[in-house]
């Protein structure tokens, strides 16, 4: 058993410097430790699934990476170098793009304005180049959601799936190195979900590292190379998807029981170790 664990840890080490390494991250809201000494990493071209119950701290952990929250404790390394991520602009400067669980769209402006929010295209006079933005938007959305036509309407008027497409478009349009997807398929039908799966495979092939938060175990097993499970703000364990099965992962999520093929984190049940 120990040998097996060591071997999987070894595979891990042989891959050089991780693209992202979050080490010993903690944050508390009031008295609640939303994330408690969590460590997680990601390699180029890799998909890491992040699993756990509602309230486990998944969104909070990735929001620290995306600059939405400031951590109380811990360090973040990008390609081995420590970085200061204090706000979303810092994260974007590092090539980190995020699809938030809440989508984080400005409901009162149109798809193109959301796509370019924070990095608008401008004319040579410094004014907004709305036509150019709409043109680009039509291109990206054409790839993600070919039937989409409501370019002039505020995104509030769009369906859940269309809104999700806008959020995805925004994350992939700016040459991300690191992509965070927090339940990206929550509002999508089966066909659109499959499309997002294809997209993830394609982005992965381009060498982008992806954190994928999902409730759907099948999706995670299908798309992720490794998975990390969180419970009550702590990491239960991390494993290669090929080394564990559904039941073991369910055990991690529900009971915090770390199976032998996984590397246990601080949240693992002591008796299981």
């Amino acid at each position, binding site marked *: 058993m120990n040998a097996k664990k060591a071997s999987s840890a070894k595979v891990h080490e042989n891959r050089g410097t991780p693209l992202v390494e979050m080490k010993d991250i903690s944050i508390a809201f009031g008295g609640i430790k939303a994330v408690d000494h969590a460590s997680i990493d990601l390699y180029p071209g890799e998909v890491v699934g992040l699993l756990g119950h509602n309230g486990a701290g998944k969104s909070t952990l990735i929001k620290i990476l995306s600059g939405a929250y400031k951590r109380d404790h811990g360090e973040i390394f990008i390609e081995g170098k420590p970085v200061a991520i204090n706000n979303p602009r810092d994260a974007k400067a590092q090539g980190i793009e995020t699809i938030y669980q809440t989508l984080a769209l400005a409901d009162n402006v149109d798809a193109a*304005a959301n796509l370019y929010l924070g990095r*608008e295209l*401008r004319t040579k006079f410094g004014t*907004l180049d709305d036509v150019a933005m709409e043109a680009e938007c039509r291109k990206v959305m054409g790839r993600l959601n070919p039937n989409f*036509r409501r370019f002039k309407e505020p995104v509030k008027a769009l369906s859940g799936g269309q809104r999700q497409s806008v959020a995805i478009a925004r994350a992939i349009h700016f040459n991300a190195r690191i992509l965070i997807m927090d339940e990206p398929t929550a509002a999508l039908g089966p066909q659109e979900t499959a499309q997002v799966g294809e997209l993830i495979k394609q982005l992965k092939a381009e060498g982008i590292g992806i954190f994928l938060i999902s409730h759907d175990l099948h999706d995670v097993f299908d798309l992720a190379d490794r998975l990390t499970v969180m419970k009550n703000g702590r990491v239960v364990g991390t494993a290669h998807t090929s080394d564990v099965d559904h039941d073991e992962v369910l055990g991690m999520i529900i009971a915090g029981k770390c199976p032998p093929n996984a590397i246990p984190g601080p949240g693992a049940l002591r008796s299981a170790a």
Partner: protein
Amino acid sequence: MTAVDNTQNPARSDEGAIARFLRATEIDARMLGMVAALLIIWVGFDIYSGFLRDGEGLFGGSFLTPRNLWILLVQTSSIAVMTTGMVLIIVMRHIDLSVGSILGFTSVCIATMQVFWLGPMLGVGHPSIWIVTLILGLLLGGAIGAFHGTLIAYLGIPSFIVTLGGLIVWRGAAWAVIRGETVAPMDKNFKLIGGGISGITPGSIGATASWILGAVICAAIIYAIYNNRVQRKRFNFPQRPMWAEYFLAITGCILALGVTWLVNSYYWPKGVVDRYVQATGIEVPPEGINIAFGYSVPVLIAMGVGLGMSFLATRTRFGRYVYATGGNPEAAELAGVNTKKLTVMIFALMGVLAAISASISSARLDSATNALGQFDELYVIAAAVIGGTSLAGGLGTIYGAMLGALVMQSLQSGMTLLNFESATKDIVVGCVLVFAVFVDQVYRRRVK
């Protein structure tokens, strides 16, 4: 590529002629409603005032006369200028209750500088006085606004509280500067900002310049429509139908030329003409001379501010961020918008606009008192709200708010014309505000 439906907003089979018209021209139905309300108010007042006493108006009253409408535009300008800033503040989910007091405070400061400082120092009427005091006034207004904005953005105090405090503080400060006295007269050049006649120099640009301006506006409208079409063609985007383009261009030009004709139909009063003739010694033909006012300076300022603020709101990154933040502050923040800095900037802008209005108001009155601009904050907010700005944030237009200011001022002026008591006027204006918002909400619900 698959077949693309090439209309901007696809036609629906069940829509009527009006809906189709609005969709093709991309005219906002609310806006049309407001124009209709304005026309009803105008015609109503003209007919009503005709019953009391015969007048020169279009319907036999005294409301729809060049004189009354010219004055109406001048009276609207101060509120109209401030409401453009209030729109952005409300769009960002804030409120500014202090604009009337900032107006009062900056105007007494400007007047004090003119009368007690620069006047005695440089000689009364020195040509640099008006510009120096104007610039200092604008800086002062901007600084006050920026200070409010800083308290709101960085200390997290709600804007309602900060500006409620500002309402009280700056009114008190205005009193403290002049100890309750009236400071007059304003500098003779500065006075022109108010639109009145200073000696024989009018605060308006006269007939020729007004026609030229009218023509320039027409050219600009046509160019804007043409340019939009070219741009959309460049990317192969759907276009408005040709008839809609013509309709918009022609309506816009008629409006611009109509207003120009109106302001050119209001002539100098006889006394001023006589003084002018005396001073210049020009020949007077036997039929007498008519000198048209043309566009007045405060109206030009309001038009300029409206244009500039619309540009800011719709064509710049700043405006885009203001709207996005109002729609979803968290999303804007996550997209990298510095919403705190933005908050400081809009309040500073509001302060500058209040100072512009302070200049217009004090120049028009030719004096400043610590009561100047009292209750203006309420009219400014009311104008924005009547003009379609949603207090929930994220929604509102500059032109709508300016039209709202015109509606409010029309009501007030009309009632003044009919000799309504000021108490009655207040009651009516208050009721109209509530009613307008009610109608708007019904409309919005139905559109959804």
